[in-house]
């Protein structure tokens, strides 16, 4: 399991290849990459703040939960903080499993929880104004589908 929270940019292709190179038995590999989008009025940069110490713990907890729920060979989570420009990679996850449904579901689960349960906050700094990104109801609701009855 690889969990990294870093300031530095990284290359998704290289990360995907490295992740895949150490797999032994998986038939399915899903990756998600999140990039900085533009905003109306134009975006100078985004700034991502996080809670050092808690961030890694929270991501670890989410990854362990995913490993309990699905048969996974491996998981990778890389999340950046600091200043990022339009189009830059914010984060990337990867899941490897025997079958595609496990890899897909685990990846969606990771994303849903990282979005709302890992201590990151995005500030969009436009050419005219700056705003902290609000959480979306949809993101909170997305968690419901993983609730066990």
């Amino acid at each position, binding site marked *: 399991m690889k969990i990294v929270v870093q300031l530095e940019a990284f290359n998704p292709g290289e990360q995907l290849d490295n992740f895949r190179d150490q797999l032994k038995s998986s038939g399915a590999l899903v990756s998600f990459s999140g990039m900085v989008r533009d905003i109306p009025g134009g975006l100078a940069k985004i700034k991502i703040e996080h809670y050092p110490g*808690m961030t890694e713990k929270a991501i670890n907890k989410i990854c362990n939960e995913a490993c309990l729920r699905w048969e996974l060979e491996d998981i990778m989570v890389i999340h950046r903080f600091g200043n990022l420009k339009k189009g830059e990679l914010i984060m990337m996850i990867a899941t490897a499993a025997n079958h595609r449904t496990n890899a897909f579901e685990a990846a969606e689960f990771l994303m849903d929880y990282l979005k709302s349960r890992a201590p990151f906050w995005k500030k969009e700094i436009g050419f005219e104004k700056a705003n902290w990104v*609000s959480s979306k109801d949809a993101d909170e609701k997305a968690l419901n589908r993983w609730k066990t009855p």
Partner: protein
Amino acid sequence: MRVQVLYFSWVREKVGLPKETIDTEAKTVADLILELCLKDERYKLAFSSLDVIRVALDQELADLSSPMEAVKEVAFFPPMTGG
């Protein structure tokens, strides 16, 4: 009881500092927020809508009603927006 209190995102901006050490007898997180709000207007501003306040106790997500007993680090922040 002495606790380290951390603020993030716009909570940090409204409170005006990233962290501080506080001596408190608060039994719950809600007690602590009340104590802070009585201390200064900046806290009232930061905590004016409690439905958009999240809290972590010793780096674990908690609730406003969670007990403060034996807690060393409290963090206040808005709903998270990573990913």
